[in-house]
């Protein structure tokens, strides 16, 4: 028999708690210059100055800090914060930089894969907000700079996969029940079939299995930006309802095993002094699942969502320290995670 009461999970709760991260991006190029892959040092400098001038004259400059490419550690950290794995071309000597507004979580990448990439990120289910922010910035820059645009193909980009709106939107979901039950592959196949990308966000960190997935639009041509956002939101409601059903199945079919796994995860995160990234992500996911069932009420769930993006090795490396041991990183990670336990 259960010695606690399992909380009935409401859709409202899950809508607010299953989408842990939102992001919107615009990809743009300037008409008068070759795209980045064909830039030489001279026209890279000129295009960089042109964009700088455009940002300056649009008065956006007051909100942003320019980070030079040479400050590599700072850039790595920023990219991690914004969850971006940006392509860096071989010609690293060309003029390139990132404008960052860390408070508003907005970044403008200059001369990376394309001349301009405007990106806004936010924790939680805030796609509309991210889209609205980048759309305003894009309007302001386009008043100063003539974009590469074609009546038929729309905004011209260096990859044919981005041409058209040049607009990409991402939502990161926490889907433990679908993952544990084993339905996630079916869901991924269905989403790919209807033209969406759906990937495990930690795949590149050599974690074969985690419960965090990113949904993004594949098509950028023949569909408007607003439609992309609305369709992604519709799909997110579908995914959430599938996860709700999976959570009910899970609690009904294997409550003891689940309770054991979740409570062990709680104990480990609360008491471990050193913790590896892979372990931490796995246990954070289980604790989050436990919160939804009402197993604990002394954990700050919003903090847990935030901390997922702030406990990678790269993020925890402090730029001022030249040498840092593995133990130092694991210790800092465990200390950081422990802050989620309210009252500790």
């Amino acid at each position, binding site marked *: 028999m259960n010695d606690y009461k399992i909380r009935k999970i409401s859709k409202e709760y899950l809508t607010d708690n299953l989408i842990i991260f939102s992001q919107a991006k615009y990809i743009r190029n300037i008409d008068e210059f070759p795209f980045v892959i064909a830039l030489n040092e001279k026209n890279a400098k000129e295009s960089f100055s042109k964009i700088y001038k455009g940002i300056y004259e649009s008065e956006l400059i007051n909100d942003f800090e320019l980070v030079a490419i040479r400050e590599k550690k700072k850039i790595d950290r920023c990219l991690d914060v914004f969850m971006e794995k940006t392509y860096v071309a071989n010609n690293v000597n060309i003029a390139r930089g990132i404008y960052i507004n860390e408070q508003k979580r907005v970044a403008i990448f200059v001369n990376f894969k394309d001349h301009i990439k405007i990106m806004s990120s936010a924790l939680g289910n805030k796609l509309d907000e991210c889209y609205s922010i980048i759309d305003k910035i894009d309007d302001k820059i386009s008043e100063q700079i003539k974009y590469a645009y074609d009546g038929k193909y729309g905004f011209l980009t260096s990859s044919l996969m981005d041409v058209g709106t040049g607009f990409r939107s991402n939502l990161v979901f926490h889907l433990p029940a679908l993952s544990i039950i084993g339905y996630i592959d079916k869901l991924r196949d269905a989403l790919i079939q209807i033209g969406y990308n759906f990937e495990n966000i930690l795949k590149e960190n050599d974690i074969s299995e985690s419960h965090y997935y990113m949904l993004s639009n594949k098509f950028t*041509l023949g569909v408007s930006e607003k439609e992309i956002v609305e369709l992604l939101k519709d799909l997110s409601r579908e995914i959430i309802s599938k996860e709700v059903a999976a959570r009910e199945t899970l609690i009904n079919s294997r409550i003891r095993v689940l309770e054991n796994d979740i409570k062990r995860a709680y104990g480990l995160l609360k008491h471990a002094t050193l913790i590896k990234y892979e372990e931490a992500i796995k246990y954070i996911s289980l604790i989050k699942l436990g919160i939804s069932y009402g197993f604990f009420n002394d954990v700050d769930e919003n903090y847990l969502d935030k901390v997922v993006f702030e406990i990678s090795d790269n993020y925890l490396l402090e730029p001022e320290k030249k040498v840092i041991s593995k133990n130092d990183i694991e210790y800092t990670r465990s200390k950081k995670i422990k802050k989620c336990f309210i009252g500790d």
Partner: protein
Amino acid sequence: MKCEKCKINEATIHFNKVINDEKYDLFYCESCAKLLDEVDYDTPFSKDKMISSLMESINSSPLKVNYIVMTKCSKCGITYAKYKEIGLVGCSNCYKTFDEKFQKIISTIQKENFHLGKTPSEFSQQVDINKEIDLLKKELRKAINIEAFEEAVKIRDSIRALEDGKRHE
């Protein structure tokens, strides 16, 4: 068909070379083609490179087609062979230079092959004019079909005026 170079092996690769605006068709076997400088056989994996190679794979039976390897974009100097190698477009003019090829790739990887959505303000007027011209052309066809020639002349003049305006912008 035999390879044009060694005259022994079966030709499996078709080049369209464009030199000084003249188009040449060349049919080589794989080993002779590998000796040509303009063809890069090292294709490390990337999504963009895979896409750029997509149409070649689709068209690979029975002849593997390498498209206009010598055509250079007049603005950035990138050839189609180079685009295939790197998987990235060199400039806005490449979209015109390689339009035939890009159209096929775009219709394979995208939902449609026309833009819907945001238009920069300086282009919105031009887009409106294009739409108006399309509309007038439809009306012109209708007028000709019903033999309303006086009306057709008026419509034709309106189309010309709009097109002249575009040219002088």
